[in-house]
């Protein structure tokens, strides 16, 4: 009875007979809610932390990827230029080869030809001398 009267007045007793303004159930629920909220906040905090590290990680990976990308790009360019360099080198070597060829031609073929011709004419001359005697 008294409880009802008190309840009307907005007062309640809990099971430990302590006087309460809220209904014990509500109070209980509130309390639970509070607990849950706290838990939730904690969890969210944890999540944020995790997400933070994740983002960091992804960032670093991105950086790495970027680096690699540039590297790859450079390598690709290098590859391209290498062919060009090779071409230039080839050209240089070719020039050296033609030069050498010309030199050898000059030195060996033409000079030798001339010498052979001279030898032949001298042999002919000697033969002629022998025949006449």
């Amino acid at each position, binding site marked *: 009875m008294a409880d009802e009267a008190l309840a009307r007045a907005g007062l309640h007793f809990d099971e430990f007979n302590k006087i309460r303004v809220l209904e014990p159930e509500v109070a209980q629920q509130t309390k639970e809610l509070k607990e849950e909220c706290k838990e939730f906040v904690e969890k969210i905090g944890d999540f944020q932390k995790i997400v933070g590290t994740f983002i960091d990680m992804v960032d670093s990976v991105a950086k790495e990827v970027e680096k690699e990308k540039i590297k790859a790009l450079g390598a690709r360019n290098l590859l391209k230029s290498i062919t060009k360099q090779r071409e230039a080198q080839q050209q240089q*070597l070719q020039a050296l080869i033609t030069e050498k060829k*010309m*030199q050898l*031609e*000059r*030195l060996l073929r*033409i*000079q030798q030809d*001339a010498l052979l011709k*001279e030898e032949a004419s001298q042999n002919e001359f000697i033969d002629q001398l022998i025949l006449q005697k």
Partner: protein
Amino acid sequence: MRLKTSLQKEPKHSELVSCVGWTTPDEVYSCADDHLILKWNLTNNETSTLLELPKECYPTSMHWFPKSAQAAGAKKTGSDVFALTSTDGKFILISRTGRVEKSVEAHKGAVLCGRWSYDGTALVTGGEDGQIKIWSRSGMLRSTLTQNSIPVYSVAWGPDSDQILFTNGRQLVIKPLQANAKPQLWKAHEGIILCVDWNAVNNLILSGAEDKRYKVWDTYGRQLYCSSSHEYPITSVSWTPDGEMFAIGSFNTLRLCDRSGWSYALEKPNTGSIFNIAWSSDGTQIAGACGNGQVIFANVIEIRLEWKNFEATLTASKQINVRNVMNDATEKLDFRDRVIKLSLGHGHLVVATSSQCYIYNTKNWNTPMIFDLKEGSVTLIKQAEKHFLLVDGSGVYVYSYDGRLVCSPRFQGMKAEIFNHQTIALCNDTVAIRDKTDEKVIYVFDAQTGKAMADGKPISHKVEVMDIGLDQCGVTSERRISLVDKNRDLFITSVRVFGAERKIIKLATMIQAHVWNDESNMLAAMTDGKILVWYYPNAIYVDKDLLPKTLYEKDSSPFGKAPQLVGFLGSHLILRRSEGSLISTSITPYPSVLHSYVMNNKWDDAVRLCRFVKEDNLWACLAAMATYAKDLNTAEIAYASIHEADKVQFIINIKDIPVKEARNAEMALLCGNHQDAEAILLQAGLIFRAIMLNVQLYNWDRALELAVKNKTHVDTVLGYRQKFLARFDKSETNKRFLQYKEGIEIDWDKINTKIEIEYQKEREKPTTGTAVARSATTRS
């Protein structure tokens, strides 16, 4: 020939190097866009900074003040100075110690090039503003030579420092320094011309352009050589000081070429563009200014010489390999210093290094003769059988093969540094040098004493002489000098003339080159498409009609276009084709055999040889030789063999003359020297013959003069004169004859008896021999 290049591991300059210059053969200076002037010591490979230029100063070219001018002028040793041009429109004179002596505001925009004249009296600069300015030694403006619309990329001085060559876009321009002289210009390239050089020794012009070609020109603007197209523009060209070779620089390219244009060697160093090339004064080393901050150095090695069975090759800068082809024996000769010049010939190898001269005999390679050289820059070695000649900056020296200084000929105004193979000739007893200040003049010296011959009076020709030569054999008094003049006519004359006027006789026209044989007095010359060999050029002194018969012509077309004549050894002609290969061809060996017989007075053998060979030109040679030596029997046989009946008749007549002097005179007549003949007769007191000689030549005045002077045979002269006039149906107009005719009766009986008496007297003279014996004439 090859270039041995060396580059530093790391470039010493951080920016492109724009110019280099040598002071001594061991010291190089280089300037670059990093504003530094570096000094390179090549003996210990050290580099030091000479000077740091202000930040706004980017050098474009440098040129050291010419050494020869310095020695001649005030003797301020160590006051070496160079001119540096830069992009801020100034040129700076900087001393060797790095002190800026003067900085002169010269052009609007960059100064692109600057060169000292050879005599050191003037500096020329060319700028981006298209102007060319001449400055005095101290940097005062003398004149503005021209004003063009295009930047002047390169300038060069003419050999006499009185002309300037410069670039004008695709054109080359030669402008004399005189104010109103007309410039000579011609289109030279298809692209902008970037670099030019003009050599003082060979007077040839070299140009390189953006059309990737280099070309060689003569001073008339005629193209002598055009290279094939390179991959990149030609950025630098440079002649060696002696004008025998030149170097070409381009992107990653360094090329060494012969003066006629063909390439000795190509190097592809990793240098970037070579913007400037400089030769050391001895012409053995190159420094190049490279686009990547390097300075490239190169040595000329693998110079190859051949003589008979020996082959000498400069394998490294201080080493020569000699190979005897006959037995394949090789010798390795090492030297303490860099080899500058070497020459192989006449059984000796002469090597000039930067401090000493080594003389090796081809029979003994172990013990050379060595002597020290005063100046370490020999520019020319010439060899003869008994001695050789060295030319360096200060003079000409004749040394014997045992290393003794024989003499050192010199004349007023001699410039030894510009002598070349064309302007100096040597034989066993004579040195001939063409003057530079007056190109018509040739000085001849006795090679034993170094004294000028003929009282120091030089041989002077009517036209500028381009090329001279001396015959190598025979006796001293018959030495002949050959010369090719500016019109390319070949002349011959005797070196020693006694009394008489010097006769310079023309042998041929359009001669490109000529060379005497080393063993006998044969002369070979190159003309358009033909090689000419005079088996006995002396024939022109004996009998002009014989000369064409002693000439041998050979078609030069099998040897390619425009081959050069290099040598004439024994019966071998050595030619160089236009692309550089050396080839040899032979002539018949008989003329040289004939020469040797005649030299030893073996006339019977000579006749036998000619009979064996049965060739007209050999007989003609023998006829000329025998006539010259006054060997009448041989001459008669030889003339008979070439069907010269008139000459044979004449010789038979001569043989009948009892007096030796008269015979000599008649021989002189046969050679066409009537003046000599008369001189001989008068000297021997044969007045009558001298008079008759002039009568027969219709030289009436002289005949009468002689007759009157000696008071004999006046009536004879008058008689012949009368006969002559009667035959031509003329009356006497000559005053002197009219004068003497009076009072002298012409009685032919009397004249004939007088003549008979003269002949009788001759026959009775005690000196007369019987029949004409073999006149073992000493070839006086």
